[in-house]
């Protein structure tokens, strides 16, 4: 971004790589916590989950997702929805994250 190109899904996803799950120590995109991401003009809609319900870091992660998305040029509003279904599982990680944790399929 910053080169004048229009805001799109990839720009937001790229920015969300900077938001981590502190306990697992990987970013929320590679962990597979982001279930849906839509960009409608300047509005960003994100549907995501946590690795476990009641996660003490939940408020910070949600706030971090909101703030990081909002900081992108062209974003006028951000809606972050937290869902518990489908429940997160290690199989949702990207291959890179699976390799990092040594996750067995």
């Amino acid at each position, binding site marked *: 971004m910053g080169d004048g190109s229009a805001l799109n899904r990839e720009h937001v996803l790229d920015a969300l790589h900077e938001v981590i799950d502190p306990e697992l*120590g990987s970013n929320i995109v590679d962990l597979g916590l982001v279930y849906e991401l839509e960009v409608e003009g300047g509005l960003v809609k994100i549907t995501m989950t946590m690795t476990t319900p*009641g996660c003490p*870091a939940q408020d910070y992660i949600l706030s971090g997702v909101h703030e990081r998305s909002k900081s992108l040029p062209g974003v006028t509003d951000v809606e972050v929805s937290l869902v518990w279904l489908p429940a997160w599982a290690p199989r949702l990680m990207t291959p890179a994250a699976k390799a990092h944790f040594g996750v067995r399929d």
Partner: protein
Amino acid sequence: MISKRLSRSTLPAFACALVNFVAAQGLILAGVTWPARTISAPGTLIVVHLLVIGWLSLLMLGALFQFVPVITCRPLPSQPLAFATVAILEAGLAGMVCGFIGFGGGSRELAIALPSGGAVVIVGVLLGCWNIGVPLIRSRPLPLPGRMILSGLIFLILTVTLGLSFALALTVAPLRPYLAPLMSGVGDHAIAGLGGWFTLTAMGVGYKLLPMFMLAPEERGITGECVHVLGAAGFALATGAGVARIWLTAEPLRIAQWTGYVAIGLAVTLYLWDIVRIYRTRRRALIEVHNRAVSGAFGFLGIATMLAAVFLATGHPAVGSPLVVFLLIFGWLTGLALTQLYKIVPFLTWLSRYGSHLGRGGVVPRVQDLVRERRGRRWFALYFLGVLLGAVSVLLRSGLAFRFDFALVTISTLGLITEYWRAWRGHYARPPNSRPDAPPFLPDPRGSP
């Protein structure tokens, strides 16, 4: 922004607990007591209560103030009351220690501080149990770890009530004729505390934390239910029948007590088997040092249980109890506590100092970046080696060798406390290397509140 999900009383509780733990270790190293010394000696009573109230109970309650809202998704009813619980327990413990000193020195004026301190401890325990118990009771359905914690809290109340009865019997003359017989139930008091309160609760906490950290299936099925039912029933039968046998000699009570022992043995065996299953079915092949080191604590739980079974079966429970109690307190419970603190302290540090910076233009460290695992690994190895050697010395009844072995326990404990402190101060914090274009690292967190 401070997250509502962060318990502000947990780290202060941990700090108080660690101070009490070091104080108890200092007294042991100074030769005030060691496991083979009679339990009724004032020095022994001081050290034991510093360990079980000042160290393990404060630590466990502090951890539950943070942990119970996680498993119930409900906040504690009162955060200020959680702080008050810590302060009241510390005050009550100080009173009890003064009472033991007075009891040993023949000072009746000071000895009265024993039941007074014990009563204050009960107030602290009841406040803590209410704060932790309310979200558990209101949570429907309550998962297995929560039910095990609830059972543990009931045993905590039973344990401190029995303890207060002992204090009253020792120090209040008019009550002595009624309560003195209870003094022979010290073993039942220990079973209720070390077993029903600490072990049952620790098992429940382990059932949540281990699968969560290692990405293993959380559902424990019938095995987990059996562990809970057998454990709770076993500790209840062993304690209840044991206390009843002080006054009654009925054969059914003896059978009930032994049934309790067998149930406890089965519960521990099933639990350890289930823990092995969690390790084997974990999805995360590369696990962190606290999850590797905690296997030492589980090993000591197994050894202590086997030894207890052998000493009971051969009719020598009094001979074996110092060794079993030492293994349970230092090998199992403290081993579990120190290893899990190695993860929990950095995690709470992250929540307190770094969480609010997430997504706001700087790279925040991961929890793993707040510790140096290589250092932790060495301290844990030294700690468990010290416990193992100490256990051998207790078995051989060698007090001098025990003090030498115990020095290893103390040195490693101090080493680990230094690592917790460094994690809290951000001593090792550094930016992760995952993104080469990452923005500059956060300013020194030591400047943060």
